[in-house]
């Protein structure tokens, strides 16, 4: 299975996303923002970083890139899309997911090992989790506060489109503790925390058992592989 990873100028976690895909058992395919050739991929990851410096609004300039426009076209046809952090911001700017992401409530960038609850295990990227499972993956962002109007929030809650919620601490002041969303079809998932940084023992979050041994992020990638193959 081929999973694309788009690199925009200013993207940072593209190599990490590729490593995660490899560790999960699929083939990572690097994609370049300026090209609309998606190279026959079966799924795509919009990785974290500061595309175009996150200037104007996070993800706003990247949402205009040829590769993004192609992804938007394929989204309707069910292409599995995972937006991580800046990728989530791109999805929101491209109106593939509703609402907006604004500066963290405390006005600071925050990097922490974040506990999350998986609220929706019925998407292409969360199928390997059980409903309400609690996981820990790193979070690192300066503009991760999720906002939406009341109507949108109600829609998200009613349709069970909130994929992840923050536990213990709401690190960025997100409304309804929203850490990530999915669309109704379940092919698009966007979240602020970084599953690709919890895929390899020794380089993930601390766990009670050993330093940096957390690998809860691996199942995001295994989920999409499992579902396409099976």
């Amino acid at each position, binding site marked *: 299975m081929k999973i694309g990873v788009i690199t925009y100028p200013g993207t*940072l*976690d593209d190599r990490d996303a590729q490593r995660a895909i490899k560790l999960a058992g699929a083939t990572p395919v690097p994609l370049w923002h300026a090209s609309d050739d998606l190279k026959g991929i079966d799924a795509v990851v919009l990785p974290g970083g*500061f595309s175009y*410096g*996150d200037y104007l609004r996070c993800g706003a300039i990247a949402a205009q890139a040829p590769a993004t426009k192609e992804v938007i076209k394929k989204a309707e046809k069910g292409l599995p899309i995972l937006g991580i952090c800046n990728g989530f911001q791109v999805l929101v700017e491209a109106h593939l997911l509703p609402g907006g992401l604004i500066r963290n409530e405390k006005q600071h*960038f*925050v990097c922490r090992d974040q506990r999350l609850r998986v609220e929706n295990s019925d998407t292409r990227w969360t199928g390997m989790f059980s409903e309400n499972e609690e996981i820990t993956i790193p979070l690192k962002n300066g503009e991760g506060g999720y906002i939406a109007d009341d109507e949108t929030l109600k829609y998200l809650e009613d349709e069970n489109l909130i994929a992840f919620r923050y536990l213990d601490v709401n690190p960025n002041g997100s409304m309804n503790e929203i850490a990530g969303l999915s669309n109704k079809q379940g092919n698009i998932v966007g979240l602020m925390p970084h599953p690709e940084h919890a895929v390899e023992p*020794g380089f993930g979050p601390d766990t*009670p058992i050993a*330093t940096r041994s957390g690998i809860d992020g691996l199942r995001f990638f295994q989920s999409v592989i499992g579902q396409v193959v099976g």
Partner: protein
Amino acid sequence: MFKKKTESNVDTTKDASSEDKDQPWAELGLTQDEYQLIREILNRRPTSSELAMYSVMWSEHCSYKSSKIYLRQFGQKVTDEMNKHLMVGMGENAGVVDIGEGLAVTFKVESHNHPSYIEPFQGAATGVGGIVRDILSMGARPVAVMDQLRFGAPEHPDTARVVHGVVDGISNYGNSLGLPNIGGETVFDARYQGNPLVNALAVGVLKHDDLKLAKATNPGDLVILFGARTGADGIGGVSVLASETFDDDGPSRRPAVQVGDPFAEKVLIEACMELYELDVISGIQDLGGAGISCATSELAANGDRGMEIQLRNVLLRDESLTPEEILMSESQERMMAIVNKRNLKKFEQIMNKWEVEYSILGKVLADEKLVIRWDEQEIVNVPPKTVAIDSPVYERSVEYPTWIDELNANSSESLPRETEPSEIAAQIIQIASSANQADKSWITSQYDRYVLGNTALSMPDDGGMIRVNEESGLGITMATDANGKYCQLDPYQGAKLALAEAYRNVAMTGARPRAVTNCLNFGSPENPEVMWQFKQATTGLADGCVEASIPVTGGNVSFYNQTGDVAIYPTPVVGVLGVIDDVARRIPSGWQDTGHNIYLLGTTKDELDGSAWAEVIHDHLGGKPPEVDFQKEMELADLIHGANIQGMVASAHDISEGGLAQALVESSLRFGNGARIWLGELMERDGIDLTAALFSESQARAIVSVGREDDVKFVGLCEARGVPIVRIGVTDLESSALEIQGIADIDLLELKSAHVRTLPELFS
């Protein structure tokens, strides 16, 4: 407001040969003698552009004119053993060290102190940007950053401004570059109130073959400036020259600060990586202080060549810039490449791919002359080495500061010591929650430590560890340290102590120390007492390196850190690089298993002068700093390495500021696990009282936790190697307390709250 520069008011070499005139050399920071020397070199007066170049390149910051004679020690006091792994030593943009498997590491720490006081956010941000470009220009991919921060008194009303701006600036720039921040230092002291120190360190990794030097060697090669456009950043100083050439409008008011664009730098890094991969360039230099003046003259001088430049080809952000200003602009995110003509196509393709602007400024000349033109007019014609290398060197006067005798005599011996257990417990907590010993995660949680996916250790562990080869697990550790108070008491010893602590921190992670970098932050070199401190500190560091058998590969000097006549504490920041065969063997700084024995390694003496205990409990600074013995440091490091190879070390934490008590606090809080500690045997063996046992800052010590199954072997190993060992406790995951028998039973949640709360309460 600005008049466009017309050809007629450019000061040319022809003008300079034919007509003499008064020049503002003093305003540009040159002495009469230096100005005279320039005239002798050129056999005429300099043009205003030449004057601009010499003045900035001969400044203390660029020429190291006051420090050079002392820095030489780092290259001279060396043994073959020390140089074994050194690929590039002192003098290049950054030193390069072989780490095996065909890979090398380059690393350097640099100061951005003054700009960070004026505009903390931009000052600190561009400090990170600058050091990363240094590493980049060696042909390396930057892989991590660190920051060494010293602020004024925590409660002072101006401190929050600086803290917020600096931390935000480092966070913003470093995070946007996608470089994990793997460690640093944060110190508060009133001595840094009007002069905070912002040092930044970057580490890069390269293949041996990719090593690049800042040299232009092949005549005819193109000189290309690429990256951001040149604007009026950081050229406040040259306004005096600009005013000469503008009519009656008065001097132009150019900004003294620089604004950084981390996005532009990230793109620059990726573009450079492709240049290196495709072997497109023959030389490269970053543009930092002194901008184009520095890059052109250094590239030419290092290659024993010359250069011919058309200054009109520089892409400008602001068309009103004069030639002098263009030569001195410190606009960020720019690089200069030397490119053979046959590689120009490839070069252009890479620039276009990354949307990086570039312009060809000229070419390399066989003759050793640097010629710069503005349209048809020749405005610079100088021997490049006279600008970049043969700057004046001063042996400044040195004077022993007599106040130091009084300071040394005022030892901590007379300070009252508690014997009441509850009071001692309170002191442990008071120290653990003091601003300097408190948890730094309010700062470090603003830094990305995960990006690139290779961080094996970072804060709060003793060193930052990065995997550099994903196949083999080969990795490096970096730690930096400095103790201004120790250096105030004795700069020779203080510099050695900084080295000892960084060395020990690296060793505690399981890595072998291999090389040293430094950033020497001092007061004014024109003050003979400061110069004495500088001489002592550099000598101490050079001697310490010989004793520890690791070389200094590079560094940076920052003088003039003072407010009025009061200099900062001498603050030589020392960074040590270590190498570890497989990062899977890294050692964390706290315990995670129950029933492990806790051992104290090393000998504890009654050394409380300059300690955290003296400062926090008694507001006292005086006496003599702790003794250093590199033989013992090396034995301790070897022991940890040997035992770790055999998988015997579950955790290790060095003992430094705050003593054993602070180390126990940190090791317990690392994973929130309790322990039971007893000190009787230690006190008896080393003949010390409780206060010394808990708070002494004796060197070459560490606490380790060892599983029961390895106990006999570990103790045997220590005895065989002659490392003093005493069991001081056991880990206990059932207990949620740090229990020091007969003294304190400190609830971990309370302890944590006290330790963590301090910085947020001060700055949130």
